[in-house]
C-alpha cells in the first residue's frame, strides 16, 4: 500500500504522455484522411507514408526522432510526437476508410440540399462516419497506452518505469503491478470512449 502513491504518480505521468498523443493522432488524422480521399495523388502518398510508418518499431523511432525534430531523447515532447506518429499510422487508414464508406447517394443528396463541401463534411459525413471513426480511435487508444511503457528504457517516467525498476531490482510484484495498471488504464479509457460515443452519437446505439 505504501507504493500506491508512487504507482498513482506514474499513472498520471503515463496519461500525460498518452492522452495528448491519442488526441493529436485523432485530430490530425481527419484532415489527412479527407485529403487522401479527395485527391488521388495525395492518397498514395498519405496512405503509403502511414503504412510505412506502421512498420517502424517504437524504440528506434524514439531515438531517431530527436534528430528530425530537435528534441532530446528523454523529452516528454519527443515521446508524445513519436506516439502521435504511431497513432497516425493506425488512425489515418481507418479514418480514410470510415469517411469513404459514407454512401455516395447521401453525399449527393446533401449537395443537392445546398450544403457546401465543408458544411457537408461537418454536418453529414463526419456524423455518419462517427461509429467507424470511434472504432479506429479505440484501437489507437489501447495501443498507445501499452506503447508508452517502452519509453521507460530511455529513462522517461511512466508506468513502464515499474518494469525497468522492477526488473533491475528483481521485484516481480512491481512488474506485475505495472502490467495490471497498464491493462486497467487501457480498459478504462476504452470504456470512456465507448460512453463518449454513446453520448455524442445516440443514433448508433443498437
Amino acid at each position: 500500500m505504501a507504493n500506491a502513491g508512487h504507482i498513482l504518480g506514474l499513472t498520471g505521468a503515463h496519461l500525460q504522455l498518452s492522452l495528448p498523443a491519442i488526441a493529436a493522432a485523432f485530430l490530425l488524422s481527419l484532415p489527412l484522411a479527407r485529403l487522401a480521399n479527395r485527391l488521388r495523388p495525395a492518397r498514395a502518398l498519405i496512405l503509403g507514408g502511414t503504412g510505412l510508418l506502421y512498420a517502424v518499431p517504437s524504440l528506434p523511432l524514439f531515438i531517431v526522432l530527436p534528430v528530425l525534430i530537435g528534441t532530446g531523447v528523454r523529452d516528454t515532447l519527443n515521446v508524445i510526437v513519436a506516439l502521435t506518429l504511431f497513432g497516425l499510422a493506425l488512425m489515418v487508414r481507418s479514418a480514410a476508410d470510415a469517411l469513404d464508406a459514407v454512401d455516395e447517394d447521401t453525399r449527393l443528396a446533401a449537395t443537392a440540399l445546398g450544403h457546401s463541401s465543408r458544411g457537408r463534411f461537418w454536418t453529414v459525413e463526419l456524423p455518419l462516419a462517427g461509429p467507424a471513426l470511434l472504432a479506429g480511435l479505440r484501437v489507437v487508444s489501447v495501443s498507445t497506452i501499452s506503447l508508452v511503457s517502452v519509453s521507460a528504457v530511455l529513462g522517461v517516467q511512466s508506468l513502464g518505469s515499474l518494469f525497468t525498476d522492477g526488473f533491475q531490482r528483481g521485484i516481480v510484484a512491481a512488474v506485475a503491478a505495472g502490467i495490471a495498471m497498464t491493462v486497467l488504464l487501457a480498459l478504462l479509457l476504452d470504456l470512456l470512449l465507448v460512453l463518449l460515443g454513446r453520448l455524442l452519437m445516440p443514433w448508433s446505439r443498437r
Partner: protein
Amino acid sequence: MNHLSAAVDWLLDAQTWTGPGQLGARATEHLGYTAVAVLIAAVIALPAGLAIGHTGRGRAAAVLSSGAVRALPTLGLLTLAALAAGVGLVAPLIALVVLAVPSILAGAYAGVESVDRATVDAARAQGMNAWQVLWRVEVPLGLPIVIGGLRLAVLQVTATATLAAYVGAGGLGRPLFLGLRTYDYPMMLGASLVVILLAILLDACFEVVQRLLSYAPGLARTGRLREAR
C-alpha cells in the same frame, strides 16, 4: 544533423559490421530470434486458428485473447518473463511467442471466415469432406488474410526483439542499449536506423508475396490485417 552523419559514419565503418558481437552478427541474431519466435507461434496458432475458423467454436475466446494482448505492454511481458526464466534467451522467446500468437490466430480464423459461405456450401454439396473443404477451399481463398496475420506477427516480433537486449539477450538492441548507456548517440542512432530498415524490408517482403499471391488464380485480392503493435 551532426549526429546523423556520425551515425552514418559509424554504420559505414567496416569494423562496425565484422567480427563476433558486431552489427552483422547482431542482425543475424535479430533475424534468428524473429524467425524462431514466429515459427513456434505459427505451429501453435495456425492449426488452432484454422480450426476456430472452420468450426466457429472458440471464436469468442480467440477474439478476447487478441484484444487482451493488444493492451499488454511488451516491455512488461519481457521483464516479467526475464524475472521468471532468468536472463538469457528463453525469456525473450517466451515473450515474443506470446506476442505473435494472437496475430497469427486472428489472421487464420479471419481468413477462413472471410470465405463466402455459399462457396463453402457448394464445396460440401460437391461431396467434399471437412478436410477437403478446409484445404481446397477455405485455406486457398483465405490465404491472403492468413499471411496478413503472419505479416503483423513478424512486424511485432521484429520490433520487440529490439527490447530483448534489455533483458540480456543479443540482437540489434545490443548496440542500441550500449549506445544509450554510454551516451554514444551515433551508435544508438545507427543501430536504430538498422532496426527500422530491417523492419521495413521484412514488411516489404510480405507486401511482395501478397501482391504475387493476388495474381494466382483462385485467390482473393484482399490484403493486410491491420492491428496495433
